[in-house]
């Protein structure tokens, strides 16, 4: 019995991690079609916002909020200065965002140094039979679920979400109905960045934070969103569930390296069989 619950926990935790690192990209790449190679560095920036804010003495959860806000504003700045000139130009976007990622690594290294730094969320452990589970990991699962639900609700049920969806489908027609498409591109990019910032802050207590940590996440995020297919949010949930379950079970039974190899193999087989992704055949997209 305890064994089953602990497996379930491992799987849920792995799914939560996948959701966190992919959700921002589901908005930025899945909805806006912007291939942001600096996505990993946006996560890193979120972690460093959190690190810096807690070092200033801020409560951890306030620091997470700061990271969301800070990276969201940073995203808006990047959209204004860089991305908005590159919509629809894939190669240029790749180069520009790759350059941005190098710039961000350099900037954070020169401010904080290259060494690893930790963040303490100041939460305890719960014991469960012979096992003990970090409370923080349970909270992380809940936060990942809440962020996904929040994003889905905003996208599906608010005026902002409605207008943003219409702009992503046909900006010219949206403009003919009174919408300023540039504003919604900017806000949507900022929203995706904010989600990424929160993700980075949530990861900060779990990993050694380094300026180069982003490269560890960017590929996973893209694999998840691409496997999800044309409905970015539900697709990301499905793909995260599949990859999280694989990763959680294999990593727990063997090693983390084998877990990641398992995820990669499943992704290859999945995209071979469903080239459009898991949601490639559904009619509604959200």
């Amino acid at each position, binding site marked *: 019995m305890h064994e089953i619950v602990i497996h379930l926990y491992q799987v849920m935790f792995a799914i939560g991690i996948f959701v966190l690192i992919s959700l921002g990209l589901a908005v930025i790449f899945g909805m806006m079609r912007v291939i942001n190679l600096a996505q990993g560095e946006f996560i890193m920036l979120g972690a460093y916002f959190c690190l810096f804010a807690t070092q200033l003495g801020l409560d951890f959860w306030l620091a997470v909020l700061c990271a969301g806000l800070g990276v969201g504003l940073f995203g808006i700045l990047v959209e204004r200065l860089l991305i908005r000139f590159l919509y629809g130009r894939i190669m240029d976007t790749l180069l520009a965002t790759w350059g941005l990622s190098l710039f961000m690594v350099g900037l954070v290294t020169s401010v904080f140094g290259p060494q690893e730094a930790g963040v303490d969320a100041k939460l305890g452990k719960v014991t469960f039979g012979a096992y003990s589970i970090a409370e923080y990991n349970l909270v992380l699962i809940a936060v990942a679920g809440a962020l996904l639900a929040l994003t889905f609700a905003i996208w599906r049920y608010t*005026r902002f979400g409605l207008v943003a*969806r219409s702009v992503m489908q046909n900006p*010219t*027609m*949206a*403009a*003919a109905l009174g919408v300023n498409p540039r504003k919604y591109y900017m806000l949507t990019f900022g929203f995706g960045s904010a989600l990424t910032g929160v993700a980075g802050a949530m990861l900060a207590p779990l990993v050694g934070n380094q300026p180069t940590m982003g490269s560890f996440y960017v590929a996973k995020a893209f694999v998840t969103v691409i496997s999800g297919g044309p409905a970015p949010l539900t697709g990301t949930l499905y793909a995260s569930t599949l990859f999280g379950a694989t990763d959680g079970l294999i990593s727990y039974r063997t090693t983390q390296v084998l877990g990641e190899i398992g995820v990669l193999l499943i992704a290859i087989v999945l995209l071979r069989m469903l080239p459009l992704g898991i949601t490639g055949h559904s009619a509604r997209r959200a």
Partner: protein
Amino acid sequence: MLEIRALRAGYGAINILNGVELSVAQGEVVGILGHNGMGKTTLLRSLIGELPASAGEIRFDGAEIAGWQSHRRSLAGLGYVPQGRAIFPDLTVLENLRMGEAMRPGPSAIPEILGHFPALGDLLNRPGSGLSGGQQQILALARCLVGRPKLVMLDEPTEGIQPSIVEEIAATLARLRRELGLTILLVEQDLRFIEALADRVLIIQKGRISAEIAPSELRRPDILEAHLGL
């Protein structure tokens, strides 16, 4: 309501409109007739602001709007139903309608407009991509009217639509015009449709308004031949 003077516009270096002059008065339905490639769609696209005007004036409701961006023109009261309808495929019918008024303050016009288009009432949760051409045309018109435009611009509403639905759309437009007092600028190739609705008919040729005829003259082959070479 709308005054256009010496309007020039086109794609890059190629001018399609070569000095269009026309005016539309409040409550009037003006039809524009012309062959493909004469500038009908280009005219409407430059009026809504999708294409910048390279020269000339567009006065709408007292303001000079030639330099305005598309969304500002829409908010000023220019309604636009483009060629091909441009229904948002992944939004439901109701969401498409809500987009018509998403940027406008005040109470929703959707219940009232649905009263004029009862056929849409059964389709509200259908995705836009799941509608027939005729249904999409009706939705595009309803979406435009939900924004309570002062002037409605229609680009070939009969294109690719079954004849029976064309008659239905003509009847609906004629009725709405009476009930809502619509002002309409209509670009068409379907002679019967234009005759059924328009107060005046302008002929567009090579990017200019070349003549004005009465709707009744659309039935006279000699006049059409003289103006259009039909």
